[in-house]
């Protein structure tokens, strides 16, 4: 069979994407759906800001506000930020370590579809009687009493997409441990790979507590258990602990890959190897490790007592040290370099002060006794948007511009890119800087409206105006993406000219089998090494030979669909029982059918051998002559 891409009809392309197990296509799936959810979460943010633009506003009602607020946080964290990071991990990490694909291509696809159906399920709540309304943290006493199915959507949706995330995490870990090209030792791995590795390890250990927490909540709400019902001996603090044992590592799951992206960008556009590489690696691991020791800093006001508060306060502050090491290493990477301000570099450069500001307010929050004042105020909102928007989102925007050519073979317009950048940066600081003061001036978070005469009007208005800037910036980006794809100007393997790592040694976009011959890695920044020696290509580590490829499969889609269907059954059997079997008689059957679909497709998968196929040497050689497209 020939490997030359052919023009395909829309349905064929669709089918290809529904069944693909290719990490590069899965990356695109993650990018599109993560991007979509980012717009959804962004629209929710805009509604929040409009409601809070002026005192005593009635743009949305109280109940609706809580739903929007909850969905904004949940969507942004679980359905936008993480999947977008997964998009870049999928697109880049296998190339960076010179692998054929990820370790488990089938599971990679399964992970994506689980996330996707979980996200869709969660968002269907808008149309099926109301979204969750207890905050993204869904604290037990409120979420247990919350009426309707909102919280059920939260629990089931996150359970499904969380399973996908866990699978993705294990997949990256095994890929990075087992699939590195010859010569790619651990201490030669690019930092983005390293941060993916650590973030995946965090996923592996942080998601099980969330899974358990969600199960307990699910059992309480849907099957009559009493974990959180105080009158039956339950305890709501259990939820808070389980949530934050997950929740704190989660924020590092978000930021570490963003750190990784920035590390690549700093080195590339300073034309300099990353300063203090070993220290950077060590700091990444240390942040990951400490990330598990600090979760109770979200619970200082719960009443855990001064001993626990003091211990967790000091442990939290300790994280400032490895993070500081990273900040300084980035700056020293630029120092003595040759900096060129491309769009990705602009984001990277803006990231340093923005994130530092967010990080240091984090350390202020860690001061337990002072946190009694900050907690649950806009000061906290300001802190986490500074680290998340000023860190993760800037990282995602930078990554989008940086890796776009590698993923799509086209280059986003630099001029428009810079417009997006400036609008977004200005808007971001305008929105969130004043929120620090709002919090200190006595404005709690998660409030539907604030009243006149409390001195909160001006800053809230400024904050809203800032958000409008961000919205315009995002629209410009969307426009940029559209015209870039319409113009479709193709670029070569190293469009930025200063690529250092393996992914820039391969065509943009890479052929579906990645490297024809696994490259030989001779040091850190292998492509740079080759370029410095005057080579245009990597030295191969093996002769051209047959390449083994996995088959496409529709099973991951069906498996996830089964859980999606089952979730409706699980949810509506509550009404079925409440009505004494009068209505919703379909609920239990739907639950069973959904589970059967999932189990059945699992059985098919394990009973039917799938050995993949081989691309033959001759076809590979032919590819060279024919060229692509």
């Amino acid at each position, binding site marked *: 069979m020939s490997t030359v891409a052919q023009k395909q009809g829309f349905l064929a392309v669709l089918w290809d994407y529904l069944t693909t197990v290719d990490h590069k296509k899965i990356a695109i799936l993650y990018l599109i759906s993560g991007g979509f959810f980012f717009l959804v979460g962004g629209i929710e943010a805009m509604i929040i800001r409009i409601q809070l633009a002026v005192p005593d506003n009635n743009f949305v009602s109280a109940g609706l506000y809580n739903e929007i607020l909850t969905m904004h946080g949940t969507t942004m964290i679980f359905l936008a930020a993480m999947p977008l990071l997964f998009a870049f991990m999928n697109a880049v990490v296998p190339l960076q370590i010179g692998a054929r694909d990820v370790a488990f291509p089938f599971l990679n696809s399964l992970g994506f579809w689980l996330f996707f159906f979980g996200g869709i399920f969660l968002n269907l709540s808008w149309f099926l009687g109301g979204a969750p309304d207890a905050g993204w943290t869904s604290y037990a006493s409120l979420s247990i009493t919350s009426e309707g199915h909102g919280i059920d959507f939260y629990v089931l949706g996150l359970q499904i997409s969380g399973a996908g995330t866990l699978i993705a995490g294990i997949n990256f870990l095994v890929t990075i441990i087992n699939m590195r090209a010859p010569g790619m030792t651990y201490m030669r791995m690019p930092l983005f790979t390293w941060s993916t590795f650590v973030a995946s*390890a965090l996923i592996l*250990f942080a998601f099980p*507590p969330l899974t358990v927490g969600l199960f307990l909540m699910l059992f309480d709400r849907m099957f009559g258990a009493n974990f959180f019902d105080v009158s039956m001996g339950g*305890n709501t603090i259990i939820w808070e*602990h389980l949530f934050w044992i997950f929740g704190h590592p989660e924020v590092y799951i978000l930021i570490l890959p963003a750190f990784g992206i920035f590390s690549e960008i700093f080195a590339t556009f300073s034309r300099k190897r990353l300063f203090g590489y070993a220290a950077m690696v060590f700091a990444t691991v240390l942040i990951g490790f400490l990330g*598990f*020791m600090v979760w*109770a800093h979200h619970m200082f006001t719960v009443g855990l007592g001064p001993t*626990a508060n003091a211990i967790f306060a000091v442990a939290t502050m300790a994280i400032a040290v490895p993070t500081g090491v990273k900040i300084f290493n980035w700056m020293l990477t630029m120092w003595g370099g040759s900096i060129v301000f491309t769009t990705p570099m602009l984001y990277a450069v803006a990231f340093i002060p923005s994130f530092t500001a967010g990080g240091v307010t984090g350390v202020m929050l860690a001061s337990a006794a002072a946190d009694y004042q900050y907690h649950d105020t806009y000061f906290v909102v300001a802190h986490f948007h500074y680290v998340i928007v000023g860190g993760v989102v800037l990282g995602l925007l930078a990554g989008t511009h940086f890796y776009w050519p590698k993923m799509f073979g086209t280059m986003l317009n630099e001029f428009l890119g810079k417009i997006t950048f400036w609008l977004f940066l200005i808007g971001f600081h305008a929105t969130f800087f004043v929120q620090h003061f709002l919090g200190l001036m006595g404005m709690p978070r998660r409030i539907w409206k604030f009243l006149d005469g409390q001195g909160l009007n001006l800053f809230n208005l400024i904050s809203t105006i800032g958000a409008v800037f961000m919205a315009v910036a995002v629209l410009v980006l969307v426009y940029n993406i559209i015209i870039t794809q319409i113009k479709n100007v193709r670029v070569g393997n190293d469009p930025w000219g200063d690529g250092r790592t393996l992914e820039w040694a391969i065509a943009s976009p890479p052929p579906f089998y990645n490297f024809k011959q696994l490259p030989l890695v001779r040091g850190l920044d292998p492509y740079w090494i080759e370029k410095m020696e005057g080579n245009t290509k990597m030295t191969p580590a093996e002769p051209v030979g047959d*390449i083994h490829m996995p088959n496409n499969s529709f099973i991951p889609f069906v498996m996830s669909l089964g859980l999606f269907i089952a979730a409706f059954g699980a949810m509506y059997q509550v009404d079925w029982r409440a009505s004494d079997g009068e209505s919703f008689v379909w609920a239990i059957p739907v639950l069973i059918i959904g589970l059967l679909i999932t189990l059945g497709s699992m059985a098919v998968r394990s009973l039917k051998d799938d050995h993949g196929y081989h691309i033959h040497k001759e076809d590979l050689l032919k590819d060279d002559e024919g060229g692509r497209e």
Partner: protein
Amino acid sequence: MATQQSTSANPKVNYEYRRKKAAEEMRKHVTSFALMIFVTLIAFIMVLAGFDKTFVYPVLLALAALQVVLQLYYFMHMSHKGHGAAALFLYSGALVAFITILTFLTIVWW
């Protein structure tokens, strides 16, 4: 695609040797199984005997830990080579597990 692990140059010697080694290992497994049963018996007898709990609790936990070590190192071959990453992650998991349980025993009051 996969490369086969190189076996020894002389397949015959290698074969006999491997057989013997495997059988030996199997005997060790049986021994460790006996040990596990023994440890379990002690644990149950201690509870049956009704000692004070300040004494029983730590001993019970120590015995459980011993059993787990036996399972991991004999039955699950954790000591064999090629288990480095597996061990690292299992122990990291165990550490997180330990901290979780510790907090639930101390700062989740009712």
